């Protein structure tokens, strides 16, 4: 899991220092509307060192740690959900990778590297929130594999990741777990 992938080429140089500079911009035009609907998804700066998820733990949601399964995407311990915080869209009218009817799909995401017990590979998951509705409430799920504090926001799952969604939708409904690629 330490071999180089195409993602390493993208993210390799990124570390916590990249955004440490002072940002003195004023209010600026919205980037979100320009991004919505395009195929290129803005992934945030990623530094995955040391945070590839492990495979040998008990059920999720407990102090026992993470033990993923690979057969039921509606369950919190499905492997792709290793760093989700919220509700699984599959239970809310969506699916593992699609948003429920009537929601707005966020183009921005936080990321985690999750271990698939099926093929014993790790994948980079870009969690994308489905927005513009009150919280779904079904299949609540908190996993924190490789979850970093808010000062490393690209890995932080407390944040409402609805940035750039259509209609400026910023309310949280549920989260999908699409794959970026192998980690």
């Amino acid at each position, binding site marked *: 899991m330490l071999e180089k992938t195409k*993602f390493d080429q*993208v*993210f390799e140089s*990124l570390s916590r220092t*990249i*955004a440490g500079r002072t*940002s003195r*911009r004023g*209010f*600026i035009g*919205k*980037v*979100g509307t320009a*991004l919505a609907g395009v*195929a*290129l*998804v*803005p*992934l*945030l*700066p*990623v530094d995955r060192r040391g945070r590839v998820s492990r495979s040998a733990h008990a059920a999720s949601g407990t102090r026992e740690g993470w033990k993923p399964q690979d057969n039921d995407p509606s369950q919190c311990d499905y492997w792709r959900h290793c760093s989700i915080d919220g509700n699984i869209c599959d*239970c*809310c*009218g969506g*699916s593992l*990778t*699609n*948003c*429920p*009817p*009537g*929601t*707005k*799909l966020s*183009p*921005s995401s936080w990321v985690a590297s999750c271990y698939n017990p099926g093929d014993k590979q790790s994948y980079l998951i*870009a969690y*994308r929130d*489905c927005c513009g*509705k*009150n919280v*779904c*409430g*079904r299949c609540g799920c908190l996993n924190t594999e490789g979850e970093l504090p808010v000062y490393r*926001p*690209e890995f932080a799952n407390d944040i409402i990741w*609805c*940035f*750039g*969604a259509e209609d*400026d*939708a*910023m309310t949280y*409904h549920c989260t*999908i777990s*699409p*794959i*970026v*690629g192998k980690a």
Partner: protein
Amino acid sequence: MTHVHSTPELLAKYRAALLGGVASLSLLVAGAAYAQQGPSGAEVPKHLDEKATSQLEDDPQILSASTPDSRRIYITDPAHFAVATQTFTIDGNEGKVLSITDGGFLANPFAATDGSYFGLASTVYSRVSHGKRDDYIEVYDAKTHDVIADIDIPESRFLVGTYPWMTTVTPDNKSLLFYQFTPSPQVGLVDIENKKFVRMLDVPDCYHIFPTSNDTFFMHCRNGSMAKITFDKDGKVDVKQTEAFHSESEYLINTPAFSMKAGQIAWPTYEGKIFMIDVSSGEAKFGKHFDVFSDEEKADNWRTGGWLPVAYHRNSGQVYLLADQRAKWTHKYSSQFVFVHDAKTGKRIRKIELGRDIDSIAVSQDDKPQLYALSTGEKTLYILDAETGKELHKVPELGHGPQVIVAHDN
């Protein structure tokens, strides 16, 4: 109030103008120009989005729900009088939640008879639970669940535990009628097709709205009669009231079953007598009523109980009553049994033991009907074979206290 300003002082002036003050045109225009700037809180963070973009292996989309059939239902969760409520779109065939729609305080669901849209009559406040009240009708496409109309109405919706038939579409699906309790009884007429509120119609001290044609509906009145209300394009209302059809001590529940397509109302009392009101001719006929319980069962304290304790299956003419053995004055508590009677003969056809506490029931209108049994306490919908009572599906986690089931094919 608007999401785009950064000068609250200016905004305060516009608000003052809106609420009764004075504002100059130039101020308004200046504000409008300013409004194009400022943050929305929804931009992709600039300090994070520059370094990396990448294509996903997956290609996320927003789903569309299946085309509604007679097993499409909507479950509303008033969340025990909470200011934020949810309505779950459910496909009975699969026992699957298709989408969830948000409403405000005591949002009242409705659905087009052809299944093309559904909606909510709703009330919100500018500060969650206080501040300015705003009543509105929001209409959603039954497949995409996108908002297709947002119609402002007077702030006078009757705020009451959610009853079906206190808000309803007309048979042509072009209009909506909603009830007002105060300051005086009125019914609001909303033009769904043209997305505008039309007017309030004065009505007697009567409740519920049972449309029989596009300009006529029936209500049930305090004195035990039915009122036939006819209105014209100019708001002129004609009222024709029947004699009382039930005695003062026969308490009719708040949530009767109504088949708009058949023109039949099935209306149980607390004690299990069912009044069948036939409005299919355009007049109210009270020929049929029957007791669900035998004298022996009555002696054993069998009584009606639940939030929506009655359902009517149109083609078979069967009435379903949720009931149990219970003390007097427990008419809103859950029950574990459903009694199925022939509405014409009043005879019992079968009795279904649910095996759990159920608060609301409904049936699908197809020929092999599903029985929907909703447990408010368990927050779970059980979908049963209406013939056998066999459980087909179980849909859990339906909010905080789901109570209401609405179908379009009624």
